[in-house]
């Protein structure tokens, strides 16, 4: 594990050695999405709550950073507060706002279960999507540029892609570590129990609702973090970030990687994004030009096959045996 850690930290140099420096930004993007997928996995994998609106919280976090930066650039006020480009203000703020939004939405959504939960989370995500689309002041559908570049963090120069990469990597690492601890804590035990048998949980005197809600808020806040990073990475934010297909992408990453596993969301993000970016290229290289333009023709069936034949996702493929999060403390 440590080896892998060093490998990842050293990746920028590896990219240089390959003479493919742009891979650094590809990788940062992967870590950022992996973080989002990880937070979604807290709901889907731990608590068994399938949220189909997770990109909404990513988007909210992203917009908070974007809007603060915009006000700082325009030297105008936002609700009486001045805008800012300071990372250690706007990024935590993004998490808080996403968390609050998640609290509001979650408190309503969690009255439903199963497919109804899937649909109501989607509904709220769509509302937020149209909300931002019609936010004229902040560019509406065209989105918002970070005119003055990425956030400022003392001792870091995020304008430099490597440092952006390391920030994303560290963020992902910390979140993974935090969630791991979380899943082994008493709170985590309750969440796992919740997924396994809600009735029984009630029967031993534990009301599920508050625990689900807290999980929902944590997931929302972490999604907000990934959104904040995404805006920085892109130096741009737009309603595309909240589009329902993005929520779909996140779910796919989680399922692809292996629900309720640690490496799952990360593997999922890596493979999904690499395929999306390089499948066309690969086909070009091997001369299948039809597929390089219509790579989805291959990608679609690939997804289907993974569902049908690779139970437990890539995690199961890579680590041969299925070991869910619960395994993490079962042994």
């Amino acid at each position, binding site marked *: 594990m440590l080896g892998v850690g060093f490998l990842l930290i050293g990746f920028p140099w590896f990219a240089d050695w390959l003479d493919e420096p742009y891979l650094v930004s590809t990788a940062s993007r992967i870590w950022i999405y992996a973080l989002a997928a990880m937070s979604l996995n807290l709901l889907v994998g731990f608590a068994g709550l399938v949220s189909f609106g997770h990109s909404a919280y990513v988007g909210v976090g992203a917009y908070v950073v974007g809007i603060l930066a915009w006000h700082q650039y325009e030297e105008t006020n936002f609700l009486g507060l001045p805008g800012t480009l300071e990372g250690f203000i706007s990024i935590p703020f993004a998490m808080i706002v996403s968390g609050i939004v998640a609290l509001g939405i979650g408190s309503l959504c969690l009255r439903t279960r199963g497919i109804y939960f899937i649909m109501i989370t989607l509904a709220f995500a769509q509302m937020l999507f149209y909300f931002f689309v019609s936010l004229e002041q902040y560019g509406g559908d065209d989105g918002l540029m970070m005119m003055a570049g990425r956030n400022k963090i003392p001792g870091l120069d995020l304008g430099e892609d490597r440092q952006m990469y390391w920030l994303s990597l560290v963020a992902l690492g910390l979140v993974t570590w935090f969630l791991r601890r979380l899943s082994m804590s008493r709170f985590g035990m309750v969440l796992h129990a919740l997924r396994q048998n809600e009735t029984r949980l009630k*029967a031993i005197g534990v009301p599920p609702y508050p625990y689900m809600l807290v999980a929902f808020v944590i997931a929302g806040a972490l999604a907000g973090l990934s959104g904040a990073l995404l805006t920085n990475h892109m130096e741009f934010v737009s309603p595309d970030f909240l589009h329902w297909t993005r929520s779909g992408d996140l779910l796919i990453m989680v399922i692809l990687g292996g629900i309720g596993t640690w490496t799952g969301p990360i593997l999922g993000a890596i493979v999904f994004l690499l395929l999306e970016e390089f499948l066309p290229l690969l086909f070009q290289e091997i001369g299948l030009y039809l597929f390089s333009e219509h790579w989805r023709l291959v990608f679609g069936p690939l997804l289907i096959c993974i569902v049908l034949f690779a139970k437990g996702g890539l995690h199961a493929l890579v680590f041969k045996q299925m070991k869910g999060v619960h395994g993490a403390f079962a042994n």
Partner: protein
Amino acid sequence: MALLQIEHLHKRFGALAATDNLSLQIHRGELHALIGPNGAGKTTLISLLSGSLQPDSGLIQFDGRNLLQFSEATRPRLGLVRSFQITSVFPEFSALENVTLVLQSQQGHSFRFWQVARNEFELRSKAKEYLKQVGLDQKSEIPAYALAHGQQRQLELAMALALKPKLLLLDEPMAGMGPEESLKVVELLQQLKGKITMLLIEHDMDAVFSVADRVSVLVYGHVIATSTPSEIRKNTEVCSAYLGEHEIPVAN
């Protein structure tokens, strides 16, 4: 004053009266058995007591409190604990974790995000005791889904005990058990007798009549008789209720 006092309880499912003017008293410390033909409304009664169903009318007094004002999740805290007819444990947890979770829930809320649960040794040692009590201490680290059916029932019992019940609702604890397993359970019940008040629902008549202090007979959602096992055996009404349904319980 009885621990559990049920008066004129009614519950209808459409046309069917699953519970029909049911009244029942359970005294502190007794092991009270509830028998009756299939569809007599035994499980419905358990559900009404545990709170997963709400009665149409009637009154349930538990430990001097009006039970109906408490939600399903809060009733265990009062000391009213059920075990499930269909085995219901947390399959992915080990036996130990199942019981630990119960103990943890005993200590109020579980909003502790950092400390690793499995390192809380006092919890685990307590949990081990309960497992020992039901004879599962050898299996503590095995995931519940890997346990034999009988062992899962035992685990279920351990979890119920861990809730320190004042009244334990046992919904067919021996269902699907082999003879030697059910014997274990009977022994266990013998031990617990006097310490915990129990309401036992069971088809295994030999077991019932060997352990129960008092027996109530439920027919069509109505208690037709409550008395000592020996009295019940003599009761002709009971026999008629059972004709064709079960063999008439004979002396053991």
